[in-house]
């Protein structure tokens, strides 16, 4: 993007607004209490969630604290506000890795100097990508008919993730779990590329002249980047867990938290942080899961519901086979055909088909995010009122802590659901087209090739949007 590149002719892609320039925000980001405090608050909430799943009285999912907070409130917040607005801000306050951090550092608050505890092994080179997360998240969705409705299944899932985070922390260095395994991490990283916020260093010269990269190695004020990034020069949100250690370790206060236009990272492709096939597949998988979730959860087809809720083992096997094929092969396969068409239309002989396929796959980031936001609206508007009930009776033991235990189920604005979902899909389609043509310009050698090569991809994005419009409204 050049200096005057404006999205829709309006939004300067180089625009940034630094929030840390406000003294209180800057001070907060430097404090060791932040993000520890929100992590502890969330840990408390997740303890209640686990208890509700394990010892809570019998309750169907809609009246269980764990189910409601995790799958209605947290999931919707994640897709609706946290990721599109503030990048991986959930990782900032996520309590799952707190036990491995505690073990490695032997303290929660202060800074431990020197080597961390644990074996500290390096994560296998072949697995330093999103593939484990891709498969892990897909496999998790095989059990969506259990996790999202059975409190004990949610307990098993969350308990398993916390345990796995701890075990991996014993064996591998720093936040290897968050970076390479956590099923929630991958899609956050992918969609964080569209987020309207970023953490970046401010003055590159300062970092260049700072010989000891304290943001990477750590000092007495904080740890070297637990996500094993180089905060002094990274350019994408994808793998920044926003732990804020770099704010604490930088002696020049050269790290900043910025608001920015959406989707800027999608246009970034550097040798150090290139566009990758594993990230492309994450985009396909997320799109596929959204479609399958809608069909099984918000669709009227009983046969699909029976499959996903494991009414019969055979039905469930058919479900996971079709679901996996659709996400791993079907959507990428169709997209591959459109990528071939793009190369054909462009007339370009130099750029590899693989590069065309990968580059344009990032157009599915805005589309996918829009699809998930629209899906989330379809969850929260009809079911949000259950939350008011469960906060008063979290364990389904007949409590009425805040006097809301008998609050009736009250769907909100569900009559306008179709309009809201349609509007969201169209808005994100617009972003996909605007950013997509820029990707085309980066992919092909000259502008006429970029224009011609863009046409099949635009048709694909239009068809995908129409498909989801049909699913949500038709």
């Amino acid at each position: 993007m050049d200096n005057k590149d404006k999205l829709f002719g309006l939004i300067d892609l180089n625009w940034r607004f630094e929030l840390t320039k406000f003294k209180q925000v800057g001070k907060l980001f430097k404090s060791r209490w932040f993000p520890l405090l929100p992590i502890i608050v969330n840990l408390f909430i997740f303890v209640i969630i686990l208890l509700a799943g394990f010892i809570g009285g019998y309750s169907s999912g809609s009246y269980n604290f764990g189910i409601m907070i995790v799958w209605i409130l947290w999931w919707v917040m994640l897709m609706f506000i946290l990721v599109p607005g503030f990048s991986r801000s959930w990782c900032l306050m996520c309590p799952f890795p707190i036990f491995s951090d505690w073990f490695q550092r032997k303290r929660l608050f202060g800074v431990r100097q020197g080597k961390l505890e644990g074996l500290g092994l390096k994560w296998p080179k072949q697995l330093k990508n999103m593939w484990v997360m891709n498969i892990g998240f897909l496999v998790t969705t095989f059990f969506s008919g259990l996790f999202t409705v059975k409190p004990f299944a949610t307990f098993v899932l969350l308990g398993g993730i916390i345990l796995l985070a701890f075990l991996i922390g014993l064996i591998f260095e720093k936040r290897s779990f968050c970076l390479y395994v956590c099923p929630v991490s991958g899609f956050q990283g992918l969609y964080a590329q569209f987020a309207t916020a970023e953490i970046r260093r401010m003055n590159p010269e300062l970092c260049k002249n700072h010989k000891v990269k304290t943001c990477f190695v750590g000092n007495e004020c904080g740890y070297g980047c637990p996500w094993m990034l180089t905060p002094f020069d990274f350019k994408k949100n994808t793998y920044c867990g926003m732990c804020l250690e770099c704010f604490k370790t930088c002696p020049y206060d050269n790290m900043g938290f910025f608001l920015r236009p959406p989707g800027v990272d999608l246009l970034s492709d550097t040798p150090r942080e290139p566009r990758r096939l594993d990230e492309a597949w994450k985009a396909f998988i997320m799109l596929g899961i959204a479609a399958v979730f809608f069909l099984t959860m918000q669709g009227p087809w009983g046969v699909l519901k029976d499959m996903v809720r494991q009414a019969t083992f055979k039905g469930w096997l058919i479900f996971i086979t079709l679901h996996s094929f659709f996400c791993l092969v079907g959507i990428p396969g169709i997209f591959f055909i459109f990528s071939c068409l793009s190369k054909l239309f462009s007339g370009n002989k130099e750029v590899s088909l693989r590069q065309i396929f990968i580059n344009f796959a990032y157009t599915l980031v805005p589309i996918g995010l829009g699809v998930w936001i629209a899906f989330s609206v379809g969850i929260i508007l009809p079911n949000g009122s259950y939350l008011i009930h469960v906060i008063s009776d979290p364990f389904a033991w007949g409590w009425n802590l805040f006097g809301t235990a008998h609050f009736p189920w009250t769907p909100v604005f569900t009559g306008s659901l179709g309009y809201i979902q349609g509007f969201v899909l169209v808005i994100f389609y617009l972003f996909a087209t605007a950013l997509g043509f820029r990707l085309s310009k980066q992919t092909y050698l000259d502008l006429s090739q970029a224009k011609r090569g863009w046409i099949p991809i635009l048709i694909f994005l239009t068809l995908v949007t129409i498909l989801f419009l049909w699913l949500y409204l038709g």
Partner: protein
Amino acid sequence: MKKLIIVLLSVLCFTATSYAAERFFEIKAKRFVYTPSIIKVNKGDLVRIRLISEDVTHGFFLDGYGLNTSTHPGQEGFLQFVADKPGRFTFRCSVTCGEFHPYMVGYFVVEKNLRLYLFVLLTVLLGVGSLLIILKNKPQQAHDNNPPQEPTMNTSNG
């Protein structure tokens, strides 16, 4: 594009001139599924619904119309209303009936589903429009085939 607009206008005219009818549906509710799970009527139709449960107590809440009824084995629920709002509306079980209760839904479609047509038309128009803009624009500067330039972190522009 003109043809598309003409087709859509024809659909609108057809909708305006279609005659209202009386429609009766017997909907059975059992284990998180309504049968039939998709019911279609035309705008202006008088709709009568009889809800029958074949296992436990189930509800029937119709989005957009705000109508609600319930049924349990041996006692049916009834609704009667004029389908005066076009579009697809979800009907949902309004009485907790088991673990899959939040997903017990069906579709009530009031033809013509202009909402869908409108958004599809909008998407196509935006896509075609963006393409025309792109194709019309002549190159103004050297083609940018490089990684994006790093934004200047001059933060006084907020």
